């Protein structure tokens, strides 16, 4: 039995909270991608396009929604990078909990996560406005 381990499993719970956050981001990401694929299949007004993704003459709407999907993907990647780094830190810190400064979350990670959600929100707003 590891005497240094927190009896409330706080680092483990925090690592799981980061995992849940990634999963939520992926759900939002997939929905934005779904909107783009639908726009590719049936561009407004002009009927279905043969060749889907690689067809010539994409409307500004389809290009814009593709841009939103790429932004959403990048924000999810930023979140995943933050989460993976944080989970590694937490697991490494399980045995050295008395050094509080080493297990505290770096401000950069919190800021990046927050900024990634704002960017994801902008992508969602763009996708909503373009899908109209």
């Amino acid at each position: 039995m590891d005497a240094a381990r927190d009896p409330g499993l706080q680092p483990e719970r925090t690592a799981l909270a980061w995992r849940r956050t990634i999963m939520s981001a992926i759900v939002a990401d997939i929905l934005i991608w779904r909107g783009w694929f639908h726009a590719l299949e049936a561009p407004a007004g002009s009927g279905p396009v043969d060749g889907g993704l690689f067809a010539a003459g994409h409307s500004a709407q389809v290009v814009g929604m593709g841009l939103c999907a790429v932004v959403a993907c990048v924000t999810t990647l930023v979140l995943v990078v933050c989460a993976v780094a944080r989970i590694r830190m937490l697991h490494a810190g399980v045995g050295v909990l008395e050094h509080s400064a080493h297990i505290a979350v770096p401000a950069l990670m919190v800021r990046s996560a927050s900024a990634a959600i704002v960017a994801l929100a902008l992508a969602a707003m763009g996708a909503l406005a373009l899908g109209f």
Partner: protein
Amino acid sequence: MREPAWRRTGKTPDYRFSLANERTFLAWVRTALALLAGAVAIDQLAPEIAPPVVRVLLCLVLAVIGAVLAVVSYRRWAHQEQAMRNDVELPHSWLMLGMTVIVSLAAIVFAVLILVRP
């Protein structure tokens, strides 16, 4: 990694408190993500819920709230840790009341829209 100046003031909080603060931040972030996913999902999966202009406006409002919530959750995390570092009372936040009102309003609006849908 450069830490903000306030992170060098006072004493480093006990890891239990700083981890709890971090988990609270993540919980608010997931709330923001749920609002974003909900906004896009309603727009795509329930196109008949309201006239298109109303539907897109409602979904945009939800997405804007999600963006604001992401910023507010960072500020709340920073303020809580500053209070812990300097051993002062944790700041009172309108965030919980605000989000309760917003989520209740959203639920009522969408419930009415579902009920009056032709």
